[in-house]
């Protein structure tokens, strides 16, 4: 199994995680994905990539470092994103019942192993 697929498998094993993707932040394109049916990986990659790019610009403008982990909480779940090296970002889609703490730990560890 490739390192990318191994990272995705670790994240999707966390209870409540509906899927995960490895994306190229600058391009907003999917590198690898493991998603439940009905989730549009292409749209997720494009919009999550854009969000991270804008957050990076905002924090840089405020004189802060680029965020290493982003948690976007919505009414029906969350989007988690962990930035890695070489412009790669590990994104996870979490339901309301997801174990977010475990997901965060797994994502940070998985994205660190990708470098």
């Amino acid at each position, binding site marked *: 199994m490739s390192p990318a697929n191994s990272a995705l498998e670790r994240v999707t094993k966390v209870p409540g995680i509906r899927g995960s993707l490895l994306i190229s932040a600058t391009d907003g394109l999917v590198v690898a994905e493991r998603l439940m049916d009905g989730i549009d990986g292409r749209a997720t990659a494009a919009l999550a*990539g854009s969000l991270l*790019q804008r957050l990076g610009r905002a924090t840089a403008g405020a004189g802060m470092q680029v965020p290493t982990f982003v948690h976007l909480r919505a009414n029906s779940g969350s989007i988690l994103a962990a930035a890695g090296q070489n412009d790669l970002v590990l994104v996870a889609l979490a339901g309301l019942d997801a174990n977010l703490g475990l997901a965060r730990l797994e994502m940070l560890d998985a994205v660190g192993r990708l470098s």
Partner: protein
Amino acid sequence: MRALEPWVVEPLQTFLTESSARLILLMTTSGQVVAQHGFARSFEVMTAAALGSAIVASTEELARLMGAPRFAAVVHGGAELSCLLAAFGTPRGRWIGLVVFGPETSVGLVQLFFDQMVEDLVGAAPREPAAAPMLAENFERELNASLKELFGR
């Protein structure tokens, strides 16, 4: 924005707003301009339309030679500007979109909203038959009329 057909404007405007693209040119596969946004001079539009349609024709021929289906899109990535070129079917025939975008957006976002625009265009297109092929003797007059419509002069 300038468009030869008014029903094109709304999908195009939505695409520009959502994708943050800088320039867009919609044309037929023969290079006839349907709508444009961001180009300042008619010469630039006509050149881009001719080159864009030629690139699409080349890639489609390349796909045919390789025994592959048509390529969905061609993306030229650059440090300052990038360009997406894609052909798509509409009730008015096969059209080409040429989009120029900068680093303030991404190829993923542009592709995502381009596909949405294509769906909107297909949905908005009048179902009446397309105009008859242009006669050679009317070509120059039609071209000048189209340029006047697209540039307001």
